[in-house]
Structures are given as C-alpha cells and as structure tokens.
C-alpha cells in the first residue's frame, strides 16, 4: 500500500521522468524548480508525520520502530553521497524512479536497475571483506539510514 502511494506520488510529481530531475539540477541552464517543490511538500508531510509516529510507543503493525540512530558524519557517508550524486546527475534517476520505471519495460531502465543492484551487491561484498567500517547491528539487518 505504501509502495503504491509512494509510486503515485512519484508519478504525479513527474519525478519518474529524468528530464524533470535534470531540469532541477540544471541550475545554470533552463531551471525547473519542480523537484524542490516535491521535496518541500514531501518534507512538510513527513516532518509532521514522523513527529507523530515518534511520539507513539510502537508502530501499528510491527513490534517496534527501526529509527536510524547514527549521528556522525563519516567518510562513507560523504563518499557514498558523492558517488550517488554523480550517478544521479549523469542519468537523472535515483532508486525510486528507476524501479518504478521498470513498469515501462524500457531496456535502458532495466540495464540501469541491474547495474544499480550490482552496485549494491558489490558494496555488500566489499563491506564483508572487511574493507568497510565496522557495523554494530545484526548481520542480516540492512543499514537503512536517513
């Protein structure tokens, strides 16, 4: 259900269309502020919503909430964000719209998603090899930050 709503949100705001995203990022060219409005609107709702959710002892359907708890700014955060920014700037797709665009069966989108999945798996393998920083939570839980 949440996936559907999120999906409709991306659709209506046209964030699934890379040209809209790149239009926003093209600050020095023809600028399309739409992405900014999308983010602002989403934040307006999520700020209030999260405040409410945090005030509850537990979620409605799950035993507990998994609030991210890390606060430090470390190299992985900075480097990761930079790498993501480069990839995002190159094509104009971030994970959400990329997955949603699979519905169009576009070959390049499929290639992108496969490459993205590969990149994620690559990171997990690299992390397990011990090259990444120590993680303090259970090995089977995936780090969802933010």
């Amino acid at each position, binding site marked *: *259900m*949440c*996936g*559907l*709503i*999120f999906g*409709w*949100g991306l*659709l209506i*705001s*046209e964030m699934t*269309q890379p040209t*809209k995203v790149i*239009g926003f*990022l093209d600050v*020095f*060219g023809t600028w*399309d502020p*739409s992405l900014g*409005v999308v*983010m602002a*609107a*989403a934040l307006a*709702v*999520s700020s209030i*919503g999260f405040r*409410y959710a945090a005030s509850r002892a537990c979620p409605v359907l*799950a035993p507990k909430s998994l609030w*991210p708890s890390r*606060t430090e700014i470390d190299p992985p*955060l*900075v480097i*990761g*964000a930079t*790498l*993501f*920014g480069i*990839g*995002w*700037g*190159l*094509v104009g*797709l971030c*994970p959400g719209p990329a997955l949603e*665009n699979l519905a*169009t069966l576009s070959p390049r989108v499929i*290639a*992108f*998603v496969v*490459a*993205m999945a*590969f990149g*994620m*798996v690559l990171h*997990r393998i690299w992390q397990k090899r011990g090259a990444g920083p120590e993680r303090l939570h259970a090995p089977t839980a*995936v*780090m*969802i*930050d*933010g």
Partner: protein
Amino acid sequence: MIANFTPVSAAVGGVLIGLAATLLMLFNGRVAGISGILAACLNLRGSDKSWSAAFIAGLILAPLTASLAGFPMQAPRMPDSWTLVVVAGVLVGFGTRLGGGCTSGHGVCGMARLSTRSIVATAIFMATAIVVVALSRHVIGA
C-alpha cells in the same frame, strides 16, 4: 531562466510521497528509503525481504494502475549511451549503500527527523549532481 515548472503536480506528488513515508513509519516502523528497501530485497539471508518486496511491488504497480485509469506512464528519456547508463547505475547502487540512503531515505525521511547525517548527505549529493549536470550540459555539451 525557469522552464517546465509544474508546481501543482509537484506539490501534490510530494504530499503523497511524504504520506507514504509517514504511513510506512507509522504502521511498519520503517524508514521509506528506497535504496535501503531495494538492498533489503536483494539480501538473500535477510529478514526484511517480504515487506520490502511488497513495497517495491507497489512502486512498480503504481504506473500500471495509472495506465488502467487512463493515465499511461511516459517512457523515461534515457541517455543513448549504454555505458553511461550502466556506470551511473553502479554508482547509484554502490553510492547509496555506502552513504546509507538516497533522496527518499536521506532527503524525505532523514531530513524530516532533522538528522544531521541526512542533511549533510542530501546537500552533498545535490551539490554533486548539480555540478555533474552543469559540466555535462554546459561544458562538455552533452
């Protein structure tokens, strides 16, 4: 010069995105960070496969429902170069996992919690992406 600005649809869509993130947290206690959700789906031994797969299914079904309602989804404009597509994909996949989130995880959810990590991450990937677009559009002329 400002062009293609669609504030109303952007606002409506944004509200839905925020709503979805709120509902996921309220009901399931999870951050709606798509990169994390996809990673959970890909994690063969993980415990988060079922709800994350369901979320992604919903995400992909959304355009199909829209088509049925008479609003077919536009094909996304992708670059011609396959190499570019693949390189960008790998960067996004690796980068989001290393950085711990993407525009939804850090941008919508993290910033809503006033998380310093998320604000910094969002600022970094926004700035980087802006530079990349500026370079590719105005310097290299792509």
